[in-house]
């Protein structure tokens, strides 16, 4: 073997050691191979400290947000169709998951006006939703109970138009000057609704919690959370950003929210589920409020799909706090967790670091470790100690009496590094004791 080949053979031998590649056909000088093996051990160096990694991550997110915000003015102008925000009429925000066929039945004046304003012709509404060569989105959680933040493409069969769905409704209270809105007529949609059984209510409540958790994981790719609805909605939102930029369940443009937040996550806050009903044709409905936007309410239609519930469509009603659903007061669902909270763990911080839940109420708490290190969620007073590996999510249910509870990570050094939070349990009653449920 010519000596001139030795650099190439050495290079291949190094690749074999570094990357597991096949070694060179002709062996390298054993002394040089031994040197490479020794060199390989020099690859070791201390890892970055987790506090530094977290700090730099925050800095990068802030920098990314600033970069992203620089793009916003032009997009916002397109979105508003040239109108200023202050002149925008008060309208419900209608987001849809069923694309072409169903588009007709809730083709509200608001949506069409917006469509025309941004110059998107009707032909564009029959959009192609997925490119076959696009890789599937990755799961953001793992484990048996992981929410499917990235569902596979589904063939959703469009439901027939709902009777009276194009009627106009008006807020029942709270507005100084009642305003007629183009939206779904809830009394028509809810005409055949039945109170959901406890299992259905729990399942849908967990789904809402999953959505919150997925949104809180949206730090790296906000769009993927929308696949929780259906792929068609995801690509609807992505393909038509000018008309309908990606929105979260609060109905607020996600980008605006990201720009407004100094640090992750970009979640929806703790949603409050005010009622769950079963509808004909394997559907259900729910009314949800986000504590981050208490003046609004959300009416969701869910579809029984793939053995579970899928949020199919929802409408945001920008009604004042006094909004009362036209269908009346939702029936209570005994012993079903009606409250959902989410806490996301990053490297050496919880977000949020303060959570408020109602006293003596079953609460589903979705925990997600979005960091690169192991973290835990511990509340000594409630007997809670959940250990989460990177990427893992757990859902726990608890009931607590009024009071303030500290949650922290008991991984050595993390609590001292500031990985602590406060859970406030509020009640009109005087607190007595706290009882863990699970």
């Amino acid at each position, binding site marked *: 073997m010519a000596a001139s080949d030795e650099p190439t053979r050495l290079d291949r031998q190094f690749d074999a050691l570094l990357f597991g590649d096949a070694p060179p056909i002709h062996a390298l000088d054993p002394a040089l191979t031994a040197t490479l093996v020794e060199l390989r051990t020099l690859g070791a160096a201390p*890892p970055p400290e987790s506090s530094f990694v977290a700090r730099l991550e925050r800095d990068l997110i802030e920098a990314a947000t600033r970069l992203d915000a620089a793009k916003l003015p032009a997009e916002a102008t397109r979105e508003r169709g040239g109108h200023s925000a202050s002149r925008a009429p008060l309208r419900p925000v209608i987001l849809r998951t069923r694309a072409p066929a169903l588009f007709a039945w809730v083709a509200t004046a608001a949506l069409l006006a917006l469509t025309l304003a941004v110059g998107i012709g009707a032909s564009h509404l029959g959009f192609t939703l997925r490119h076959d060569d696009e890789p599937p989105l990755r799961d953001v959680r793992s484990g048996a109970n992981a929410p499917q933040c990235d569902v596979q493409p589904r063939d959703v069969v469009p439901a027939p138009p709902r009777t009276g769905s194009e009627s106009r409704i008006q807020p029942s209270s709270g507005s100084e000057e009642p305003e007629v809105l183009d939206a779904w007529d809830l009394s028509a949609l809810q005409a055949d609704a039945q109170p959901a059984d406890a299992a259905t209510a729990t399942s849908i409540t967990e789904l809402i919690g999953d959505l919150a958790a997925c949104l809180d994981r949206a730090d790296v790719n906000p769009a993927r959370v929308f696949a929780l609805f259906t792929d068609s909605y995801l690509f609807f939102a992505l393909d038509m950003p000018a008309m309908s930029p990606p929105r979260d369940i609060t109905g607020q443009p996600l980008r605006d929210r990201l720009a407004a937040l100094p640090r992750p996550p970009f979640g929806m806050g703790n949603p409050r589920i005010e009622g769950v009903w079963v509808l004909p044709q394997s559907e259900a409905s729910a009314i949800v409020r986000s504590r981050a936007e208490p003046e609004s309410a959300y009416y969701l239609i869910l579809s029984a799909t793939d053995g579970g519930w899928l949020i199919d469509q929802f409408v945001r009603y920008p009604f004042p706090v006094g909004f009362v659903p036209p269908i009346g007061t939702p029936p209570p669902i005994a012993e079903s967790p009606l409250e959902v909270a989410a806490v996301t763990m990053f490297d050496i911080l919880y977000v949020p670091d303060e959570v408020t839940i109602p006293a003596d109420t079953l609460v589903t708490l979705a925990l997600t470790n979005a960091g690169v290190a192991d973290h835990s969620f511990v509340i000594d007073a409630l007997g809670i100690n959940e250990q989460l590996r990177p990427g893992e999510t757990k859902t726990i249910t608890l009931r607590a009496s009024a009071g303030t509870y500290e949650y922290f990570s008991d991984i050595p050094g993390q609590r001292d590094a500031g990985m602590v939070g406060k859970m406030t349990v509020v009640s009109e009653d005087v607190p007595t004791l706290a009882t863990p449920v699970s």
Partner: protein
Amino acid sequence: MNAWHALEKNAAADESEDARLVANAQRDPLAFAPLYARYVDAVYRYCYRRLGNRAEAEDATSAIFVRALTSLSQYREGTFRGWLFTIAHHVVADTFRRVRPTRPLTNEDDWVDPDPGPDAHAIAAQERSMLGAFLIQLPADQRDVIELRLSGLRSAEVAHVVGRTPGAVRNLQHRAVVRLRELAEASIAPMEECRGRQ
């Protein structure tokens, strides 16, 4: 996870996955996070090995990722890993020029970390190893090649980083390894001679 395992993991990173993540991040800067998570360990370790202390390694790592984020739109060709380490290479060189303008790159063996971390003892032991000591005696271009290879780059990527041809990089690498072997043998011979007298 030990350091080498992390290095192997990064080295084996799927380039097509990088390409997908880069495309996402070029559309949406907030989607840069997975790229950061993927490479922060390798970049930090590279900086630590070159700069020799934690504080400067952290500063350099920050500068590298901020620069990568803000200039990602300009990235067009080659592997992302190679592009990122090109930035790292320049930032480390800038650090040397700024912090130690009079100190040559090859005389770093007497640097002391004023703020040693929990791994200080282990690292000190590694740095005391003969090969580690010999490595810093290599000419800067040879050491650059070895350090980048140990950071998980292939020769073609190293060539992109240092602005040489792949063949030139292989030759530099070969000369470096041969020189390390010679230095090791030269140091072992007196020790064996000493043992023979005993």
